[in-house]
């Protein structure tokens, strides 16, 4: 089962929920111990491992194919530069220039070139790393190179490491655009983390739009509960969206977060709550299954 943790707004607690859920589910002391994989899909700013402190090893380089133009063969027919949708190729009177940072690696220029003057090589977009040895939870993350724009390609490469026999928790990036779609697309369930403030509520509605468009079953966690007002709860009630958990606006939780400590480690009573939430998600999914059959 694949569960993504997302939210439109940044800073609402996605990483906190991902970590505490993954740690609760993979806790050896409890009788429900599962094989859990945690994926940090926020490849622009991956933060999960700051809380886990695993030794990481590189498992793969994420690359994007890019053209290499043989200037000897090229007769500057301009077909490649006219075709490129990303303006990565520019034909000058004497040669064709290539801007690697704009290239999406579609390969169209090589297909088109009538002189067979275009070969392909690779440019690095980032890396996929994994926690060394046997860790609990099993942990993978992607890291986008600084100055690189192809976030979704790194996320897609990261998701190839999901083992369908295990429970996978995906910590998604903030927002509602391509990187979020790349993370949430094809998961079984999505948890939307929000706070009940003006911005939090506005961005939650956008995120709900995304998961509905992708037809992914979802529920809401209200973080910093007690801060702000009741608008999120009223909205969820009106829309029939389950509120899975309320995490209070607790100074101790904020302080543990600031020190890089997942709060279930210091407040073990929360493990049960995360496990109950996991059960509630399974029940909700069973209900969805029933509706379909």
């Amino acid at each position, binding site marked *: 089962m694949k569960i993504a943790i997302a939210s439109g707004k940044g800073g609402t607690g996605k990483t906190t929920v991902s970590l505490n859920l993954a740690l609760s589910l993979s806790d050896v002391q409890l009788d429900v111990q599962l094989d859990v994989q945690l994926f940090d899909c926020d490849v622009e700013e991956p933060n999960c491992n700051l809380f886990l402190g695993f030794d990481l090893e590189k498992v793969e380089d994420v690359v994007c*194919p890019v053209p290499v133009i043989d200037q000897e063969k090229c007769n500057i027919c301009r077909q490649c530069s006219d075709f490129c949708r990303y303006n990565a190729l520019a034909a000058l009177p004497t040669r064709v220039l290539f801007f690697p940072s704009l290239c999406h690696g579609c390969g169209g220029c090589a297909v088109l070139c009538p002189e067979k003057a275009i070969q392909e090589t690779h440019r690095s977009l980032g890396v996929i790393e994994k926690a060394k040895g046997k860790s609990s939870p099993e942990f993978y993350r992607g890291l986008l190179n600084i100055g690189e724009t192809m976030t979704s390609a790194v996320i897609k490469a990261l998701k190839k490491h999901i083992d369908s026999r295990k429970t996978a928790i995906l910590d998604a990036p903030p927002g509602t655009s391509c990187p979020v779609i790349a993370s949430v697309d094809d998961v079984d369930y999505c948890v939307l983390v929000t706070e009940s*403030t003006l911005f939090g509520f506005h961005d939650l509605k956008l995120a709900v739009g995304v998961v509905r468009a992708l037809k992914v079953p979802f529920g809401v966690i209200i973080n910093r509960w007690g801060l702000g007002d009741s608008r999120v709860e009223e909205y969820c009630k009106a829309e029939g969206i389950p509120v899975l958990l309320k995490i209070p606006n607790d100074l101790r939780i904020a302080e543990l977060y600031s020190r890089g400590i997942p709060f279930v480690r210091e407040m073990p009573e929360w493990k049960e709550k995360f496990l109950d939430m996991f059960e509630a998600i399974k029940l909700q999914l069973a209900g969805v299954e029933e509706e379909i059959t």
Partner: protein
Amino acid sequence: MKQLTVISGKGGTGKTTLTAAFASLAKNAVIADCDVDTADMHLILKPEILEKEDYYGFEVARIDPELCIECRKCREFCRYGAVNENFEVDPYGCEGCAVCTIVCPNGAVSMEQRVSGQSFSSETRFGPMAHAKLGIGEEASGKLVSAVRSNAKKLAEQYHKDLIIIDGPPGTGCSTIAAITGTDLVLVVSEPTVSGIHDLKRIIELAVHFMIPTVVCINKSDINEENTQLIENFCAEQEIPVIGRLPYNDIVTKAMLQEQTLIEYTKGSECLNESEFSDQVCQIWARVENILMGVQDKQKGIKTLKMKNL
């Protein structure tokens, strides 16, 4: 004309709150909300839309089932796995590269424009504002950021404004890059958490990569004094000025719930804590303005530095 972008790398550090406060303090500025994924500035500034324009992102391939001979060429050449077994294109997977149109032997594939969002030029109680709304799950938010910035420039020319204040998106990817390139100054809003420090380092690396002068402000500085010190030390090492610290204060949330900037909310407040907080924000803004005036002058202003090992 000068341009300032407020970024953080990490979400939730207080970018929009600060930018909105700056909007109410700046005397002659255009506001640009470049967090196009989840634009929030309009909730506080309540812009009156003057002009609206449809925004077209990348095109999407469409396969005409009448013409498709199921030769599989499009599936074979699509590097994004966007064509399914029934020869339908997944609009979320398609990158709009058009390779399928050139490999199809029967001319069954065409590229279609799609409205991916809207950009707006507006009027607010603090002056003109450029902003946008990206459609759900749309690509190319970087391209829309560029559209918002060009609208902001037009507004600045039209209304003779000498500054554009840009609220940037979280992260270090495509839309953040579009929001900072070619600006005169980047203000990074950081928070003293382990994640905040990590994200600050990456975002500073990004600003250095694009050679943009950078200053830092630490928000919620009292939630972890030790980490605040680490940020200060790091910035000192990198010779990046820290131009202010703001303590955690729930007036930020209170002002937001009233749909006001915190400068408006604390105006005439009898409460010492509130007026002190608001004074600190005013001081940070005064420093930003001074630096912007001096950016041209490398002697008095600040310089971009080659990053040491991060």
